[in-house]
């Protein structure tokens, strides 16, 4: 069995009264592509933010193989957040170079790695262009190049194909497969099961902040006694999905009072239809 790269042990994450994650434990091993699957608000993004060191666990630990907390070894990670996070007044290469410099990587090294992966993503001609006019697919590819330019040990991808056209999504998945072939380690968050099945060696199902299952697609199916991954997923996540914690957070102070004052009390459809739905 390959070595453990990242260990997530009994991780809880709370935002005020909202429990985003509840005692999640698993490990990421070298050279595998792990899928984080769950509905919206399940806790995938929170978990990825914890793994990238943006958040700190309320309880529990996220450590690298040498026992170092992940937030102290962030140069081992490459992160592509859902929003991609590109600066529109910088070119694609300037975006990549900015992050590489903050990782402490020489421009020549990051350029060489960028060019290598840019060919796979068909992005060579776009590196000197401002990202302002980029399509969602191009932005995603640039963010991928940026996350790979410093040679991370683990790549964390938050819904990398969300909103992408079919061709772009295929290209992104092909790159992940290429990385897997080269021995790279990837954590791939998605809510599309077919994608997880296509790309991932192992799938972790998270629902309402709790880890529901952890295994290969076939293991999940046999574990639940289902014939398809979709059925297995439905079986594992029967509990009603909650809101995203950002949406669940209550206003406080003046905002609470203000919103209460101006919150519409009647559904707008009722207002438009004259207020009587029974008629």
């Amino acid at each position: 069995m390959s070595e453990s790269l990242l260990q997530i042990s009994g991780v809880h994450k709370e935002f005020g009264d909202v429990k985003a994650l509840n005692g999640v434990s698993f490990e990421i091993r070298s050279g595998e592509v792990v899928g984080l699957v769950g509905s919206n608000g399940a806790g995938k993004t929170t978990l990825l933010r914890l793994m990238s060191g943006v958040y700190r666990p309320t309880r529990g630990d996220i450590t690298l193989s040498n026992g170092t907390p992940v937030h102290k070894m962030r140069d081992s990670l490459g992160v592509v957040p859902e929003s991609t996070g590109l600066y529109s007044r910088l070119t694609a290469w300037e975006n990549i170079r900015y992050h590489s410099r903050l990782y402490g990587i020489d421009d020549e090294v990051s350029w060489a790695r960028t060019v290598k992966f840019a060919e796979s993503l068909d992005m060579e001609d776009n590196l000197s262009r401002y990202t302002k006019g980029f399509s969602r697919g191009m932005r995603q590819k640039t963010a991928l190049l940026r996350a790979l330019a410093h040679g991370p040990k683990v790549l964390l991808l938050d819904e990398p194909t969300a909103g992408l056209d079919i061709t772009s999504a295929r290209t992104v998945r092909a790159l992940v497969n290429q990385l897997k072939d080269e021995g790279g380690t990837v954590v791939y968050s998605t809510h599309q099961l077919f994608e997880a099945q296509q790309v991932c060696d192992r799938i972790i199902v998270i629902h309402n902040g709790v880890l529901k299952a952890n295994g290969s697609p076939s293991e999940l199916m046999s574990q639940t006694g289902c014939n398809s991954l979709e059925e297995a997923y439905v079986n594992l996540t029967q509990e009603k999905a909650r809101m995203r914690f950002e949406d669940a957070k209550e206003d406080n102070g003046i905002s609470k009072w203000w919103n209460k004052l101006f919150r519409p009390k009647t559904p707008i459809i009722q207002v438009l239809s004259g207020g009587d739905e029974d008629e």
Partner: protein
Amino acid sequence: MSKSFTRVKTIAKKEIVEFVRDWRTIVAIIVIPLLMFPVLFIVFPILLESEAAELDSLTVLVEIQGQEIPESLILEFNNTSIIIEQVNMTFNQSLSIPGEDVDRVRNMEVDAVLRIESREDIWYYSIIYLSTSESSTEARSRTIDSLIRWENGLTEARIIEGGLEPETTLDPLRWDGDNRSADVATVGEQAGLILSLFIPLVLSVWTFSSAIQPSIDMTAGERERGTLEALLSLPCTRGELLLGKWLGVASITGVGVLLQIMGLLFAIGYLASSDFIGVPELSATATLLIVISIMLFAIMIVALELALAMRSHSVKEAGSILAPAIILIIFPALFTQVINLDGIESFWFAIPVVNVLLALRELLLDRVIFEHVLIWSMTSLFYATMAAYYATKQFNREDIVTTLS
């Protein structure tokens, strides 16, 4: 070079590059500050002069109403560019009640109406005019000038009639010599006094206002655009991030303030050549202390703005907090204009914002008072540290990656 310093420099450099690539920023931080004072002090007076010249060349029509209008008064009007029309009439009510002349003046049939009447030895008059019309106001002004000249002649004639000497009777107390030479303040000090009335105001307001846009863009803007999450997953600490962004905002603000001062000095130089104002005389110590006070003020303001903007969930929210906050600068700035610096109590130099503004006023007068310098420098340092601490706290919040959008 340490890794931390390199990261701070990288962040600051990127912020500046990204910011100046927007042409609107160039206009806001270079063109406007550079041109503001020259336009205000040079172009604006020229425009006013040309407007005044245009008004001078205007011929106005004044109707003089009354009985037995003195010939000497008519002569005074004949020496001006006023066309007069005389109407012989008597009045049975107050001369100031416009009566039927309301419509004539409002419809510009005449620019003004002078009513004059002699009762015993006193002449009574009124001028009916339209204050919202430039030509009517000008007609009134010229009429008054003519009346004053005529009155002076009348006064002199009556003094002579009484057997007195008009000059000694009307002007028994006179200044001897050039009154400007009696002021022991040097031209430089006088210039410093004038500048101390508006340089602190301009510096403080401009520092605050020019830092608003970059502060919001680099914090709430990043948060809204979703670029902050990627940045926070990098190996740089949040302290480095704050420092890098602070350097970015401070550099942009510094350029804006510097250019504005250059524009101001250019305007002063222009005015100095026309004897309107001198060049202030400042010692090296005062100059150095001015720079230090501005720097401490900028540290505090920029850190505070970054913190407030970082607290906000969106650009809109940050704007709605920071834009009205300029009142916190304008009010103290206006207030410090009226504080008398002679014998000022030391506690004034401990009040936030007021301390730096007073320090600037005092230093521009080349007054370096050790006790005051000690108080404003220590308190400014304290406030700047507190603002930086507050900003650090905001940057360390976990929810800065979440947005409302």
